[in-house]
């Protein structure tokens, strides 16, 4: 009973804080950080979704980029409106992700990681081959409608929340249970008739869709995108959010994104290198706090619960 309450409280706090931040923060610089955190949270949650089944999806960079470039192209070249552009972009990304999964998910563990890595980098190089995408300098002029300018933080935050809810629901469903079982003990799942390959591909479909949304949001809030935005560093940073926040809980990547993005912007003021910070965060959490910040917190709570009655 207490478990469910904690989750519900978590969601309420999250939504309240996010909406508040989106609406109450008027400073444009801080607003942009809110947007970055929201998008980062979606990226982290997308990565974590695939980690449920025991795989690290380094193709995330490609999925985000495809969503971004498709949305950007549809808007600048075809004049498609902002919402539709992002949705179509995410759909394209989903098709690519599903196809990618169907082809590559026979491979597992380090092989799947490296295939994803290769794919992200190959796609990154590929963007620059197309003049219509702006080549190496990138695509410019991706703007949401003027009227929405002031509302962008709220729109982004709400969109992200919608898709976080989608991911949370998926995780709690029987589909989520299958993914979890696959991650821990795939043979058992197969022995009771579950088509684990199909489930894995479905997971890729979901994650590439949400990644595509994140990409579209990035395109319209950054207004400029270039191939370098979607290199292997993107999934590496998403991994940092997950590991630092805590991969064993849904809110982990959200917390991780908030913490790291805020920290990096604070530190950038001192001339610190972003990569260094994220890298350090990954190394420290992997070595010292394997469950991330939420892992530490839940152990602290458990210790407090045991409390003064245990003197051993």
């Amino acid at each position, binding site marked *: 009973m207490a478990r469910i309450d904690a989750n519900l409280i978590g969601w309420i706090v999250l939504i309240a804080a996010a909406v508040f931040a989106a609406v109450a923060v008027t400073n444009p610089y801080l607003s942009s950080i809110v947007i970055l955190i929201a998008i980062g949270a979606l990226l982290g949650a997308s990565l974590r979704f695939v980690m449920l089944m025991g795989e690290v999806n380094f193709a995330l960079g490609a999925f985000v980029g495809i969503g971004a470039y498709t949305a950007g192209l549809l808007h600048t070249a075809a004049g498609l409106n902002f919402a539709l552009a992002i949705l179509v972009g995410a759909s394209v990304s989903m098709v690519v992700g599903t196809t990618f999964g169907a082809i590559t998910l026979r491979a597992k563990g380090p092989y799947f990681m490296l295939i994803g890595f290769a794919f992200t980098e190959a796609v990154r190089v590929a963007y620059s081959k197309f003049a219509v995408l702006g080549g190496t300098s990138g695509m410019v002029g991706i703007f949401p409608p003027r009227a929405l300018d002031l509302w962008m933080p709220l729109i982004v935050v709400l969109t992200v929340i919608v898709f976080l809810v989608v991911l949370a629901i998926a995780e709690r469903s*029987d589909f989520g*249970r*299958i993914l*979890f*079982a696959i991650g*821990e*003990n795939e*043979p*058992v*799942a*197969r*022995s*009771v*008739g*579950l*088509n684990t390959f199909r489930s894995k591909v479905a997971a890729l479909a979901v994650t590439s869709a949400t990644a595509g949304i994140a990409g579209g949001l990035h395109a319209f809030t950054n207004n400029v995108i270039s191939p370098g935005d979607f290199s292997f560093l993107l999934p590496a940073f998403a991994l940092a959010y997950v590991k630092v926040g805590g991969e064993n809980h849904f809110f982990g990547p959200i917390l991780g994104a908030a913490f790291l993005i805020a920290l990096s912007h604070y530190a950038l003021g001192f001339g610190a290198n972003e990569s260094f910070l994220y890298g350090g965060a990954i190394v420290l959490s992997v070595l010292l706090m394997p469950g991330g910040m939420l892992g530490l917190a839940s152990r602290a709570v458990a210790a407090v619960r045991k409390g003064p009655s245990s003197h051993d």
Partner: protein
Amino acid sequence: MTDTAPRGTKPGRIVETGPGDAPDILRIEGLTRRFSGLLAVNNLSFEVRRGEIFGLIGPNGAGKSTVFNLISGFLPATEGRSFVERREMTGQRPLTVSAAGLVRTFQHGSYIRSMTVRDNIRLGTIARLKSSDRAGRVDEVATMLGLTHVLQEVAENLPHGLQRLVSIAIAVAARPKLLCLDEPLTGLNETEVGNVLEVLRRYRGELGGTIILVEHNMKAVMNICDRILVMHHGALLATGTPKEIATNPAVIKAYLGDRHAN
């Protein structure tokens, strides 16, 4: 009692008349598995009859678990054929074989450690049952196996004996026609063994009628099996009732010989 055909499956070619009335639920012909020179299973042929509890025993390294891997589709056979209810399962993968009604457990940790007992058992229902029926089946199976009081517990926190029951429960939840248990009694104390055997015996009908048991616990095997097959060095050594097997000189020699060797 028979389910409607499971979703999304392609059963093997049906060889003879309707599966429902075939006396043998599993038929193996000349099953052989070679691992680069090593003959793990050697030209094995046998049948398992509907409704019986069938024991598969043999000294260590005899090939018993390999047979399980072969018949359940986790390992392809080098030669030979297998049939579940007259449907040919040779070369089929676990997905098809389990859809045909053969569900197996694994020797070690045949459950999901970090999931609750309830979610573990539910896993067995997902492929076979409609979403609205799943929760009911979980409760049904939990009652059957005496796990109702631990449904909320996380599997890895349970005592060994209950973990074994969870493994069996997951398989049972899938409504198997043929339940294949790979050493379900290892590491259990006398009481726990008795408990599992009682469960198997009492619910033989409900569990889908037929059970194949790979086991080392001789006492239990003699106690509960209707028929036993003894393997040695991958080949069939003897089959028969427990009494026949216990007095079979070749079997005695194989076991005594091996005991001396160890």
